């Protein structure tokens, strides 16, 4: 995405507010879209596709959290639980009421949005880190409910198997099929989020984040917009949960614990708060880092030792490297990977004549 601005002259406000203000950006986005839709899924093997699927699902979840935390400034530690709400809603609808996949997907999102806005109510009075911990309460309460209310959980195992998703009679049961399905949903999510921040609602979110008292004075109903932000964010989370459920074939609350919530928070902080691109980078980074680290550590360790001899050391080394890399990136660039990316593109923007 080397955005050369040379020769781009904006003549109207519309041009300035366009999704891609620079023609070249539009074509790079188009180029990336073509690559992820055509050559990649055709050439990649099942393993690469399975990893790509995990990344794509994570991107959607990270986007949702970024809308709430990055754009509206409300830190949430309950994101994982909102995903599980979507997951169980879809699983119940799909198995007990035999709803088709796309309806279950939407319903999961809507239900999560409703639950999410309910747990957003404390944001009326509670702010900042206190709110973060209050959402943690949501995490534990939802977890407990899924675990103990048998009508929801479907029995002591608290897990519901779902059939493979089917669209118009065609059953999607390969990694490649799932890849396309997930990619389409995620692309819609990205485009919707990009457009959200070109509307009145999106700008209200940003105003609340930047200064809530000032926002109220200029006539923004803070409580309403905060709840709306919780709802939209949880909708994304719910859809993410549904995708996880259909991807794995099972809804199980143990996939959506506090660890998940913290992981998603890590994604958006590492990627960049208040940035769509940041959500994508962060989700890819946090999902791929442990996998890549494993390859690297195994690759290097395997040169000198047999894996089984040093496995105990290697796995702990991965944890240390994971934490170390996070801290390293924070120190290098506290605004996240998106800023790092911007630094690089800024450099090329005027290259080769930097002055």
């Amino acid at each position, binding site marked *: 995405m080397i955005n050369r601005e040379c020769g781009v002259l904006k003549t109207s406000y519309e041009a300035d507010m366009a999704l891609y203000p620079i023609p070249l950006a539009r074509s790079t986005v188009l180029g990336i879209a073509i690559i992820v839709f055509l050559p990649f899924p055709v050439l990649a*093997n099942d393993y690469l596709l*399975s*990893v790509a699927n995990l990344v794509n699902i994570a991107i959607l979840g990270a986007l949702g959290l970024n809308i709430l935390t990055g754009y509206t400034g409300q830190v949430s530690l309950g994101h994982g639980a909102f995903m599980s709400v979507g997951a169980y809603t879809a699983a119940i609808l799909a*198995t007990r009421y035999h709803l088709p996949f796309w309806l279950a997907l939407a319903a999961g999102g809507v239900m999560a949005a409703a639950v999410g806005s309910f747990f957003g109510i404390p944001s009326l009075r509670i702010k900042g880190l206190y709110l973060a911990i209050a959402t943690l309460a949501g995490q534990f309460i939802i977890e407990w409910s899924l675990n103990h209310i048998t009508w929801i959980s479907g029995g*002591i195992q608290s897990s519901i198997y779902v059939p493979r998703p089917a669209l118009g009679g065609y059953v999607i049961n390969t990694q490649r099929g799932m890849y396309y399905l997930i990619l389409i949903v995620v692309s819609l999510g990205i485009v919707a989020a990009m457009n959200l921040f070109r509307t009145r609602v999106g700008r209200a979110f940003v105003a609340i984040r930047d200064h809530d008292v000032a926002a109220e004075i200029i006539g923004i109903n803070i409580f309403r917009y905060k709840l709306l932000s919780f709802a939209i964010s949880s909708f994304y989370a719910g859809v993410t949960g549904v995708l996880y459920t259909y991807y794995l074939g099972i809804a199980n609350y143990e*996939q959506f614990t506090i660890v998940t919530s913290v992981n998603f928070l890590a994604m958006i902080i590492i990627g960049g708060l208040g940035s769509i691109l940041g959500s994508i980078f962060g989700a890819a980074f946090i999902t791929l880092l442990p996998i890549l680290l494993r390859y690297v550590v195994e690759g290097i360790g395997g040169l000198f030792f047999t894996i089984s001899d040093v496995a105990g050391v290697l796995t702990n080394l*991965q944890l240390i490297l994971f934490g170390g890399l996070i801290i390293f990136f924070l120190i*290098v660039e506290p605004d996240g990977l998106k800023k790092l990316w911007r630094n690089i593109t800024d450099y090329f923007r005027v290259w080769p004549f930097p002055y």
Partner: protein
Amino acid sequence: MRKRLAHLSVAVAILVLVLALVNPEVTWATHEIVVGLQCDRTGPVQTIGVFLCPGFHDYVKLVNKKGGVEGHKIRVIEIDHKYEVPLGVEAYERFKQQGAVSVSLYGTPNVYALTPRLTEDKIPGTSPGFGRADATDGTRFPYVFPIAASYWSQATASVKYILDHSKGKKGLKIAFLYYDNPAGREPLPIFEKLAKREGFELRTFAVPPPGIEMSAQILDIAQRFKPDWVITHLFGRSPSVSMKELRRVGFPMDHVIGFVWGAAEADAEAAGWSTAEGYLGIQFAGVGSDFPILKEIAKMYRDEGKDPPREMNSTVYYNRGVLIAALHTEAIRQAIKRFGLPVTGEKVKKGFESIKGFTLEGLVPPLEITPNDHEGGGWVRIYQIKGGKWAPMTDWFKAYGDVIQEALKEAAAKGS
């Protein structure tokens, strides 16, 4: 400065990618038989993985040293998934990509998530002593093998032991203290059935995760319910906490039975051996170093000029690792013997289903895995903590097969 660091980090990222792509593991020789091993050496259940996985590796190493399985070497791919489901799925996909013919699963949530995939891909996976109990039914779950006593069999065995040792006492009271997650609740229906049938009073007490604090529940047990026996089904650090708390309220330790994940040396070590004295534990693999196969492994290390690994001292988990590896190897051996090469997941599944009378001189129970019974009978042994070690109290036994069959039928009828 800022810019240079940025460049450096990009360079590092590219290096990482290149290293990942030229990973030597990707190219694999066709004559090797690949077995996938999910393992947790980090994450919430790492205290088990660090002993269990070396046991698995050591057994396979021994088999390979002795010429492999019917002349074919086995290669184990170990992947640590930190008990996280997405990483577990990724690990499984990598096993599949590298041609694994069987997979040793790890962690109940992972077993749940991977069950549909194993069936679709026709790769057998094992979940010894954990996972879903109804996977015993091989007709419903053709590619999942509990291969050792499931939580249901552990429940029936513990009740059998109690009834045998209370000599027809009237008004017997049993408390069941369990970790409050799906794995912890798994045996509840069996206990309820048994309470009705044998006429004892059952009350259950839940310990919420992370299970580091349960004094209120133990007080409730000791001061309000006052049971004759306590059965505990706990994970992680909570078994040792339960030992300490039960000792504190003065409950007799020899009337406490722990399920398989609360019955290791580590649990007694954490609580203090003297505190745990008398505590009973269920085992699905032999405990102690007094087995020929373990001596062979120790000798293999000495022949290399090394000391046997420290992990061997934690015999409960290490021996379980050996058991799991031995059953995988035996299944592959049966597969080659009966169906020839190349080895496939389908053949190994049938290999598992023909395991019989494979005991490694006492380390493995007298299993008999059949297409209907993937658990192999549900054999356990009860051990007791005596003078700083686990001492056997019973021989291999199983109990109430009819109750389990009934529960399996109900589970099949309910579907899900």
